[in-house]
């Protein structure tokens, strides 16, 4: 199994959820993160000064998948959230050794 950890623009989240629902059978876990990459942050004004805010709000989307579905899902994600602008985000893929469904103690692919 693989764990996909995708960093996407927050405003794309709703579309992404819908897209993954479409292709079916994909649970996910999301949380808010802040990212620092090529995309430049913005300036904030505070009374006597301007400050560079270097971290931008992003959304982390984690999806655990059987190996064979990885390509399909990566494709779908790219398609859904790409705008072609810097800051579109990244997908980090790593190996996932084991999954346990707490409710049933099932393990492995059945537990996804």
């Amino acid at each position, binding site marked *: 199994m693989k764990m996909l950890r995708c960093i996407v*623009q927050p*405003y794309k989240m*709703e579309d992404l959820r819908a897209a993954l629902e479409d292709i079916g059978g994909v649970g996910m876990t999301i949380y808010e993160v802040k990212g620092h990459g090529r995309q430049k942050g*913005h300036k*904030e*004004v*505070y009374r006597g000064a*301007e400050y560079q805010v270097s971290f931008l709000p992003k959304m982390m989307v984690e999806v655990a998948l059987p190996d064979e579905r990885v390509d399909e899902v990566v494709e779908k994600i790219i398609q859904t959230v790409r705008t072609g602008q810097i800051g579109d985000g990244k997908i980090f893929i790593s190996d996932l050794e084991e999954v346990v469904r707490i409710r049933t103690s099932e393990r492995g692919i059945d537990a996804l």
Partner: protein
Amino acid sequence: MTTFMLGKRKGLLAPAALFLLAASTALADEAPTAPINAGDTAFVLCATALVLLMTPGLALFYGGMVRRKNVLGTIMHSFVAMAIISVQWVLWGYALAFGPDHGGLIGGLSWVGLRHVGGNPSAAYGGTIPHLLFMAFQSMFAVITPALISGAMAERIKFKTYIVFILLWTTLVYDPICHWVWNPGGWLFKRHALDFAGGTVVHMSSGFTALVVALMLGRRRGFPEEPILPHNLPFTILGAGLLWFGWFGFNAGSALKANDTAAFAFVATNSAAASAALTWMILDWVFYKRPTALGAASGAVAGLVAITPAAGFVTPLSALVIGILGGAVCRQAVQWRTRRRIDDSLDAFGVHGVGGLTGALATGLFASVGEKGLFLGNAKQLLEQGIAAGATLVYAVVVSFILLKVLDATMGLRVDAREEFEGLDLSQHGEAGYSE
């Protein structure tokens, strides 16, 4: 008694000249009519402060309903109205609305810069309170009215355009309508249209403008497919609480005296707010299975709007009924605009436009304290209410439409897509509402 001294100047002065001249010229005030009554003055001073507080209350009410990234932008729509319209009112707004009448339609420039508006009472305006205080009381009404409209622009209007819009709108729409209804020379005043505290002047004018705005601005990206949920409902409810509180100044204060009329208006205000809050909440309970907090808060505001034109003219029981009507009708209007996919984002039209209209007509039905409505056999009053409401509606809609067309062509109404995603706080104000 302190003597008020103000220049013979004609028209407006450039700031630089103001700087030197403001304090250095003198002209006798209009002749005093009656002595100042300390009790009435005390009441109207406090009422004026209460009405001022409604605008920060509105800022919270609206600010809680938008997404985090737009909280400051939304609050600023109200806050900046306090700043801009307070100045406009002193410089020329009051003159246009309450200055000597021209043809029943508008005041004029003779009171510009508050010339002739001093510490002595004016027989036409209060009579027992300093004229200047009446001006201040009215200024708070002028301030909150354009801020109400901002509910239809939330999360997408350009700040610069917003500022120009409210300045022009107040001058071209609010000031004339105010003149028609409350200036003794105004044509609606003379027809004896009743508007105790601004059902047409404040709420209908802003609410129907909001509808025009919502249609011309277009929908927020994502609306209505994606849920755009309020980021801080406790703010919204606190805002509703401050509005309820301040509305006592708005309505009871409109008696301009600390007397029984003020007491009637006070009780009517509270009764209608309460019954409307219950009505909206119960309807949510029936139709959505949940008595929502936002429904209760929205209902309270709807009731306050609906009772505004009637406040000093009805009994407490009538006020309860007007509240029920206001709550139910406004809620229906909100349902309607949602079904029609109109993005009047914070429901300025549904609550203020429709609520103001409901109240204006209800005044023609229920008036029984000092005035008579249809239920006391006076059908003519209902007619007059209809005329006043209709005139307000048509005038506000037409002028606002033209104004928005012009602004759209010149400055643009909406922020661009990127700025909208980023939020108004950052894109328009360079700030974030919240951080660590």
